Every structure is written in structure tokens, then in C-alpha cells.
């Protein structure tokens, strides 16, 4: 067996609590309650262990990480451990004072989500009034603090047609990087797949527009297109390989090789409350389950792309076929690919009902449907 290389990156999901109600939320159907979250000391220990293990970069995310009042302490623990920190936020609650405390603690970068270029449409998709205005203010605050700003826009049927305006908004807000992320269908998003899936022609137009922007912005603003793997016929190299580059720690301390792996029954993921991050990364059965290529069956095992896409995404294979060890149906060589083609062609007919907004509280749906 080849030795296990150390991880480079940690996705720290501090909380599942979130002021937004996006229908495309990729967090699991069952969320961790606030009372079940890791405490400050545990997160600081995780950061310290992560640094010792070889992690050099962390994305501090959620839910909305700003809901944690101890955020500066957690950022400081990461920075002390030599880890570069990026805050991944909705922008709700990010004012100059809050950001100032985080920068003092060592925060180096902010990634801000936005749902649409039009304020009303953005508020509607986010399921929160005036959230667009909060985001605009957050972007300005980040720029004033001199931090790099990334904009993250999840793309779906309701915003792909305004891609030009979205890129324009990113430039207006002074983003250094604009990530145009086609919806990945996990967790809540899978529930709303029919409502979110775009048409093939929408995607073709958007992709052409992105290519044109990339040429125009080369060397100035980085534009990233996260591929719509349902449509492309190729599997994405999910997480750079299972247990290869990155790990996720969920709000309750569950450590996962992929943020979507919480939904995989039988994986029995380890928890940072019980085990060291080093044991979790190197020894735990969950992180070794699909590491490398030994677990693969044909057609992946003999495929020349096996070290490029690593057989695609295990969580997607599980979500679509019920078996995490099968080739990702996104790949045109996968035996289950026809299943995906069926889903995509059905989506061309449109959705029968509105999407179900995400709600952190169990008392969901106060009429603010997307």
C-alpha cells in the first residue's frame, strides 16, 4: 500500500445555522442543532491538529459561520497553527467591526455568496428580505479592509440566463475571483433537483458567455466555472480524490472525506471528539474506504482517467444508485449513465411545483417559497 500523503485543506463547517433559505443548499437533510455543535476549545484543538498534520488552508464555512460569536478565536487558532484562513459567508452580519476583529485574529480572505444580480431576485432565491443589500455592504467592508474578495454564485435554472449581469456585479463589487458554480445535487439540493436543473441550451449560452468573459478579464479577475457534471458526460475529480487532498469537519465534529458523505449510510465516519485528526486521516476505515484506486471495479479500474477523476464522486454514486462503490453515473462510460440522461431530458419539461426553501428551524416554510 502506498503511504498516505498529508491533507492540504480543511473545510470547517462551524454551524448548520443559516439566515438564508436557498433551495440549492448542499448540506444534509438532517442538520446539526446548535446545541450539538463543537465548542470553542474543540475547534481550536482541531485547528492545531490540522496544522501539525499538514493542512495549510482552511475554509471556515457552515451554514453561516458568523453565527458563532467565538469565530475570532477559531480563526486565531488556525492562524497560529500556520493555516491560511478564508471565511465563506452569506455576508449577513458582516460589518466593519466584525470583520476588523477577524482580520486582527488573522483572517486572510473572504468568499461571499450572492444569488442573482438583481436585488429582488437575489432576495427571493435566498429567502430573505434585504439580504442583497447586506451582501453589497459586506463586499464593500471586505474591500475597505484590503482583503481579497471572492464571489460565489450557485447557478441553476433561475439565474443562468443573467450570467453576464452576475459577472458585471462581481466586477462592480471589486471581486478578485468569481466562482460560477453550477449546482451540485447533494443534500437539500437533491430534493429540489427538478426545480433547479437548467436546460441544456441555457447551459450552452452560459458557457459561451463565461469563455468570452475569461478572455476579457484574463490577468485581472479570476473566473471559475464549476462544471455541471449532470450534462458534461464526464465525472468530476471530486475532492481531488477520497482522502487525498482535503477533509471536512461538520458542526458536530464528524470528520468526512467529502462534505456530502454524511448522507452515506454504513460509512461510520469518525468524530474529532473521540479521535485525533491524524488517526482520522491516516487510519480510520471511513477515510480509507475509497482511497486510491484499489476499491475500483471496471470500467474505472482499467480506465486511463482513473488517476484524473478518481472514478468521480462517491456520494453522487451513492445518491443515484444506492451503491457508493459504483462508477459515478456522471461519466458516459458508467453503466448507470443512462439514468442520468433520463433525469436531464425529463428536466427539459420543466418543474411541476416550486422548490422547497431550506429552513434551519423545523418550523419550515413561512410562505417564502422560491
Amino acid at each position: 500500500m502506498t503511504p498516505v500523503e498529508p491533507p492540504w485543506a480543511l473545510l470547517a463547517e462551524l454551524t448548520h445555522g443559516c439566515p438564508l433559505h436557498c433551495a440549492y443548499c448542499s448540506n444534509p437533510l438532517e442538520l446539526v442543532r446548535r446545541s450539538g455543535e463543537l465548542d470553542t476549545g474543540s475547534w481550536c484543538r482541531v485547528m492545531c491538529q490540522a496544522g501539525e498534520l499538514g493542512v495549510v488552508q482552511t475554509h471556515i464555512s457552515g451554514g453561516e459561520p458568523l453565527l458563532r460569536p467565538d469565530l475570532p478565536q477559531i480563526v486565531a487558532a488556525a492562524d497560529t497553527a500556520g493555516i491560511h484562513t478564508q471565511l465563506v459567508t452569506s455576508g449577513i452580519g458582516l460589518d466593519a467591526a466584525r470583520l476588523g476583529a477577524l482580520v486582527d485574529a488573522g483572517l486572510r480572505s473572504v468568499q461571499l455568496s450572492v444569488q442573482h444580480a438583481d436585488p429582488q431576485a437575489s432576495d427571493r432565491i435566498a429567502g430573505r428580505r434585504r439580504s442583497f443589500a447586506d451582501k453589497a455592504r459586506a463586499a464593500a467592508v471586505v474591500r475597505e479592509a484590503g482583503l481579497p474578495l471572492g464571489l460565489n454564485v450557485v447557478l441553476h435554472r433561475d439565474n443562468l440566463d443573467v450570467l453576464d449581469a452576475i459577472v458585471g456585479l462581481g466586477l462592480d463589487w471589486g471581486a478578485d475571483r468569481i466562482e460560477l458554480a453550477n449546482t451540485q445535487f447533494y443534500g437539500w439540493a437533491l430534493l429540489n433537483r427538478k426545480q433547479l436543473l437548467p436546460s441544456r441550451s441555457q447551459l450552452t449560452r452560459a458557457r459561451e458567455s463565461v469563455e468570452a468573459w475569461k478572455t476579457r478579464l484574463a490577468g485581472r479577475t479570476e473566473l471559475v466555472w464549476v462544471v455541471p457534471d449532470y450534462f458534461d458526460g464526464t465525472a468530476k475529480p471530486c475532492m481531488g480524490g477520497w482522502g487525498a487532498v482535503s477533509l471536512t469537519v461538520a458542526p458536530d465534529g464528524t470528520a468526512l472525506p467529502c462534505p456530502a458523505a454524511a448522507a452515506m449510510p454504513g460509512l461510520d465516519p469518525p468524530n474529532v471528539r473521540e479521535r485525533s485528526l491524524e488517526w482520522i486521516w491516516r487510519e480510520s476505515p471511513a477515510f480509507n474506504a475509497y482511497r486510491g484506486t484499489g476499491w475500483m471495479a471496471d470500467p474505472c479500474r482499467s480506465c486511463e482517467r482513473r488517476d484524473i477523476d478518481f472514478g468521480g464522486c462517491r456520494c453522487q454514486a451513492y445518491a443515484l444508485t444506492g451503491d457508493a462503490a459504483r462508477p459515478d453515473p456522471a461519466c458516459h462510460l458508467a453503466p448507470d449513465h443512462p439514468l442520468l440522461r433520463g433525469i436531464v431530458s425529463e428536466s427539459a419539461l420543466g418543474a411541476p411545483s416550486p422548490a422547497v426553501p431550506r429552513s434551519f428551524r423545523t418550523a419550515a416554510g413561512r410562505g417564502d417559497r422560491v
Partner: protein
Amino acid sequence: MTLTHTPGSHPPAASVPDPDPSWRPALARHVLLRHDRVRGADLLVLPERVVVLHGPAGSIVRLCDGARDVRGIVEELAARHPKAPVAVEVPLFLGRLREEGWLR
């Protein structure tokens, strides 16, 4: 996260011009240079990317402090490594890093 190795396997693009010898290179705002004890390597850490600096790349980037100009950096490295082709390769390397947006 994207992992990149530099000097990369692809040759420098023909379009990258040799930088002006009076340019005073400095790391871009979003780039952090650090030594990785675990891997024994110098790294550029960016918000969404980690660049592993192989060979002498780290010691070159360490001189990019915004005070030294390209000419000065070349002279300093030439004094340290009299037999290395620094006069040609270092400006090329710095130009490539600027093209990537990691130096300004």
C-alpha cells in the same frame, strides 16, 4: 482547492515578455509565502490554491520584497550561485509568476 507545482511542467508561454529590470516584484495581496515543515517545501498559499515551489523557486520568491528590483535579485542570486544561469532564468520565472497574478 487546486494544487499547483512550479516551476510547472509546461514551458513558459511565448507571449510572456521578459520583465523590466527595474520592476520591484512583491507578492500579490492574496498570496502568502510560507515554509511547510511537514513537507519540507516552500509554498505559495492563496485563498483557493496552494502552489508548491520546487528547487530554488522559494529562495527566489523570498527576495521579492518590493524593495529589490529584478536587476538586484539577479545580482544577489548570481553571487550566491556563480555557476547557475540566473540571468536568463530568474527574470523568466518572475515574469511567469506575475502572469499568474502571484507577483505584482
